[in-house]
C-alpha cells in the first residue's frame, strides 16, 4: 500500500479550509447583486409627488442620473439626505422614488430638509420598487442617458460611498456601451 495515500484527506482538508476560509468575509450579506444592471429601467406609469403629473420610464432619459429610493419612515434616508443635497448642488441629477410612503408627508419632508430631486415619483404601493428589486430603502440606481441601469447601491450614499461610484457616474456621461461598465459595476 502506498503510504502517501494516507495524506490525501489531510491535503483535501487543508485545500478546503483555505478555499472556504478565504470566502468568509468576502460576501457582503447586505448587498445582493442586482440582475437589473445593464438592463433598461423598468416600465411604469405613476404620478409625480409634487404635481400629480403622470410620469413614465421615458422621463428617466436624456442626462445620466441617480434614481434614489426613499421614504419618510426610513431613518437611513434622513441620514443620507444632506449628502444628496450636496450632490444636487454640485449639479448631479437626482430623481426620487418615494417608496411606500404618503405624498403629503413626503412634501413636508422635502420642504423641511431641502429638495435635491429634479422630481419625485410617487410609489405608494411599492409596485415600482418591486420591479426594481428594492428590498430596503434607501437604494440608489445609476441610470445613464439612455435609461439603462449601470449600477446599484444599497444603503445610504455618503462621501466614502460616492468615491467608489464616482468613476461609474463620470463614465455614464461619455460612454454608452455596456462593455465600458463591466469592470466598474461589479
Amino acid at each position, binding site marked *: *500500500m*502506498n503510504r502517501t*495515500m494516507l495524506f*490525501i*484527506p489531510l491535503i*483535501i482538508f487543508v485545500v478546503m479550509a483555505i478555499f472556504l476560509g478565504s470566502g468568509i468575509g468576502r460576501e457582503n*450579506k447586505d448587498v*445582493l*447583486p*442586482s*440582475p*437589473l444592471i445593464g438592463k433598461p429601467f423598468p416600465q411604469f406609469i405613476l404620478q409625480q409627488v409634487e404635481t400629480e403629473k403622470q410620469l413614465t420610464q421615458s422621463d428617466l432619459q436624456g442626462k445620466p442620473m441617480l434614481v434614489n429610493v426613499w421614504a419618510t419612515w426610513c431613518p437611513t434616508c434622513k441620514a443620507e439626505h444632506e449628502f444628496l443635497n450636496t450632490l444636487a448642488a454640485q449639479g448631479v441629477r437626482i430623481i426620487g422614488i418615494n417608496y*411606500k410612503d404618503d405624498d403629503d408627508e413626503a412634501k413636508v419632508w422635502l420642504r423641511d430638509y431641502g429638495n435635491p430631486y429634479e422630481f419625485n415619483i410617487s410609489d405608494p404601493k*411599492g409596485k415600482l*420598487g*418591486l*420591479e*426594481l*428589486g*428594492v*428590498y*430596503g430603502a434607501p437604494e440608489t440606481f445609476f441610470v445613464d442617458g439612455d435609461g439603462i441601469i449601470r449600477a446599484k447601491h444599497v444603503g445610504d450614499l455618503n462621501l466614502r460611498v460616492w468615491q467608489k461610484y464616482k468613476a461609474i457616474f463620470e463614465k455614464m456621461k461619455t460612454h454608452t456601451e455596456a462593455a465600458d461598465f463591466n469592470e466598474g459595476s461589479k
Partner: protein
Amino acid sequence: MKLLFAISLSLFSLSSFAVVNGHLYPFDNDVDKERFDILAEDLRCPKCQNQNLADSYAPVAGDMRDKVYELMIEGQSDDEIVTYLVDRYGDFVRYNPPVQENTFFLWFAPGVMVLIALIMIISLARGRKETQPLSEEEKAKLAELQAARKQQSVEKSEKRDS
C-alpha cells in the same frame, strides 16, 4: 347556531385559503393553494435572509407574496412566477438554486467528495489484502529468529527447573 355552522361549512367547501402571517389568500381549488404554499416556502426573503416568504414579516416579503398571488391568479405557471422574481431580485431569492456555471461546485462537490472517499476506502481495503509473500531471504531470517527464540525458552525452563 346550526345556520352559522352550515354557512361556515359551505364556505370551506367552496374555496380554500392560504393563510400567511394573518393574510388571507383565497383560492378556488386546493391545487392552487398547495402551489402557493410551496412557492412561498421555496422563495427567500431578500431582507431577512434566513427566512422564506411564508415565514417572513418583512414588508418586502409581504409585497412579494402578494405578487406571487397576483401572478398565480393571472394564470402564470410556477416557473414563470419564479422567473419573474429572479429577474428582479436575482437567483438569491431561490432556496433551490438552478444548476449553472457558478453553482457547479455547490451541486457536484458533495458527490465528488463521496466518490473520492469511496475510491480511498476501496484502495485501502485492497492494500490490506495484498500482503506480499516473504522472499527467500526473509524466510531464512524468520527461521533463524524462531530457532533463537525456541532456544531461549528452553534455556529459561531449564533454569527454572534446576
